[in-house]
């Protein structure tokens, strides 16, 4: 009984990603067609060459028909998956296992979300039938609990910590400003963000991810077949997933300064990939910055720095694009936008570009000493969440 992983058994041979933004002129079908077409073209395959599909969407459609109908897939299996905001990564995880098992030769993972047709602001998932006792609280408010808890635990001044997390948004906006696919292309200063009205705890709207429509897709094959398609595939080193007990909500020992599900998923991924020290092994990471405090805590959960030190590293510039540990070089959920089912695959798309030197001169990170990337994608709330971690690299071994 163990998580063995499928290190170097599966490779990504092509990816596609639409612009993430308020696509008033595109529906779910258009976004799926655009992202899948880009992925087919990237891999140099036709849709009929793909043997099986995994479609991730949180609430933009039910069943495999959501994909097979617009793409007119003939006689192909399509599985719709949903795992909160980690839905897109979950699609990739399932597609990867499918080719690793030998059941299929070529599989596609595609994620999509058409959020802006709801007529409401923010993310609003339709609730299942319920007994009326579920708490009534936005995700922003749940994550806002992190700030005072972290400040108290590590003796950081709350005003200073508020500025620290605004710096995370500032960095992600700076990265997004350079990215033609990102929702927000404007820089935003931490000072300005701090001046904005609080909407949840001390968080302002600009501490929250961008609400966008979009789609992203990946095509995977067994590693030994990858070079039939291209010279520079990306190999999957680790895929881990932890779905929590929800115990954090009722456990008096939980203090809202860490996300144990993320820590466990990270540790499992490092085991699978054979990584002892992530900070010295990883060239970059795409992490789930749904709210600014989330990214700060994740730096510690994923072992990029010691507990209680992430806030200092933020101020030191460690996580900037040209820093020692670049985080969310594409702008993250904050500036790239967060179409729920697509975000996990968007994160992989950025690694796909960066690790293969394709991000463009103004965005490309330094790969001279390290060439692995980590993707972290979570769904849920502090105390009750699911967490995905993958590790990717351009070489086998």
């Amino acid at each position, binding site marked *: 009984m163990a998580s063995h992983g499928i290190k170097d058994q599966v490779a990504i041979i092509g990816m596609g990603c639409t612009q993430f933004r308020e696509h008033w002129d595109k529906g779910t079908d258009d976004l799926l067609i655009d992202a899948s077409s880009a992925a087919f073209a990237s891999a140099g395959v036709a849709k009929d060459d793909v043997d099986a599909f995994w479609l991730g969407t949180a609430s933009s459609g039910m069943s495999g028909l959501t994909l097979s109908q617009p793409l007119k897939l003939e006689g192909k299996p399509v599985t719709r998956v949903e795992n909160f905001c980690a839905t897109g990564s979950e699609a990739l995880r399932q597609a990867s296992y499918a080719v690793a098992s030998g059941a299929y030769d070529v599989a596609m993972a595609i994620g999509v979300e058409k959020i802006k047709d709801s007529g409401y*602001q923010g993310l609003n998932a339709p609730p299942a039938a319920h007994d*009326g006792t579920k708490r009534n609280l936005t995700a922003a408010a749940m994550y806002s609990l992190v700030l005072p808890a972290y400040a108290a635990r590590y003796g950081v001044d709350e005003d200073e910590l508020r500025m620290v997390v605004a710096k995370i948004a500032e960095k992600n906006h700076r990265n997004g400003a350079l990215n033609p696919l990102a929702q927000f292309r404007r820089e935003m200063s931490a000072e300005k963000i701090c001046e904005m009205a609080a909407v949840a705890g001390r968080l302002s709207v600009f501490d929250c991810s961008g609400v966008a429509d979009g789609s992203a897709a990946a095509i995977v094959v067994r590693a030994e077949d990858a070079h039939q398609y291209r010279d520079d595939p990306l190999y999957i080193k680790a895929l881990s997933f932890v779905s929590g007990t929800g115990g954090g909500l009722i456990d008096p020992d939980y203090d809202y300064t860490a996300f144990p599900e993320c820590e466990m998923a990270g540790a499992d991924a490092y085991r699978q990939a054979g990584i002892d020290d992530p900070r010295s092994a990883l060239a970059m990471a795409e992490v789930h910055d749904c709210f600014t405090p989330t990214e700060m805590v994740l730096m510690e959960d994923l072992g990029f720095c010691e507990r209680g030190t992430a806030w200092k590293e933020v101020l030191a510039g460690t996580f900037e694009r040209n820093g020692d540990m670049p985080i969310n070089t594409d702008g993250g959920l904050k500036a790239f936008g967060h179409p729920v089912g697509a975000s996990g695959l968007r994160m992989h798309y950025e690694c796909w570009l960066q690790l293969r030197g394709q991000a463009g001169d103004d965005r490309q990170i330094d790969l001279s000493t390290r060439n692995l990337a980590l993707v972290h994608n979570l769904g849920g709330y502090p105390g009750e969440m699911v967490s995905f971690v993958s590790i990717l690299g351009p070489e086998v071994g």
Partner: protein
Amino acid sequence: MRGIISFGGYVPYRRLNRAAIAGVMGRGGGRGTRSVASYDEDTTTMGVEAARLALRSSGVDPRALWFATADPAYLEKTNATAIHAALRLDSSTGALDFGGAVRSGVGALRTALESGGPTLVVAADIRGGLPTGADEANGGDGAAAFLVGGEGDGPVVAELLGTASATEEFVDRWRQPGSPSTGQWEERFGETRYGPLAAQAWKEALGSAGIGAGDVDVAVLTGAHGRAVKRVSGQLGVARVADDLAAAVGNTGTAHPGLLLANELEQAEPGQTIAVVVLADGVEVLILRTTEALAAYRPVLSVADQVANGAEVSYATFLQWRDMIQVQPPNRPEPTRPSSSAAARAQDWKYGFVGSRGTESGMLHLPPARVSIRPEDELDGMAPAPMADVGAAVVTFTIDRLVYSVSPPVVFAVVDFDGGGRLPVELTDVDPEAVRIGQRVEMTFRRLYEAEGIINYFWKARPARSSSGL
């Protein structure tokens, strides 16, 4: 000897300063304050709060629950069943509504005093009227509960000496179901009807008790007709007429006789004679005498404490809460109605606030779970954990200005219960600026929202009001 075994009055936390009415409208209002049920309260939830206070003082299980209100949350469906569920009464305990009329509150109490078996009588009301009217200013919101029984059921703190009732049909005050205001006939007419009826009932009640008016220490006198009450007040010939709480609370209608009686009982000595005289479509009179058992009786939270500890609500907010003005809702989906079958399965949790505790670990699970988060507990190795009366403290909190609420913002806290256990829970009766870590809170039964005509009841936490230091 049948009488009152325990009792509780409930005054909601919010007060409207009557002067604020004229401040906005240019007229109306008056001096002092009136009590205001919060946006998440209705007569059922206030009835639960009063009944919890009554039951916690006695520990006696009622065999019947009667609920009276002139402002029922539901028609057709019994409201007393939600109170029954929140109190976790046995399913063999009947629950009935006494519907519609202000008189039904004192009527239910008299009927309980004259029948058998331990009976919990609950009365609650939300009183209002159109802006600037007298009913808006002089009405109040509140509830009262009495556990009535004989000596075999528990120590009686006030025994029934006598009763009387006088009835006559005349249209003095009236309201159609769903109407926001009550009509009233020319005042002097009602006065001519109530005067003789009161004299008749008063004489008969004194006779049935075998005492004279001079033997009555205090008369709790209230009714639906202010002038008539004032006139009768001068005619009873008693040593003292009880404070009618008009200055701070207002007239709580169906609940008012009970609320005033609870207030008097909390201040009374053993051996005192208390008369209750209520003018509503006739006259009801009860005569009670406090017993030696009253000396040992300790209210959980007195009416006087609740009257003294309230906080103001603005007139604009009051009007919103009473649906007198509509405000722009947040651009968020409205909540969906709770599933009746899911709610029924979760009845003990949803209405009774009962979690589960791991028999090995002692770990509290809210909501109750079959599988523990602690490995030492077996599957289904859980015991019910009633938490409604357990105090808690705020561990951390946040203010949510984005989420849908009838009265934003939502104040939300993570609270740790005394003796172990945690819940993230919405706070109510709280000003966002006043919340602090370490603050003591207690659970309160509330109406979270209404969807498709179904009211979603559940529990919130509020800053502790109980003198018992819950």
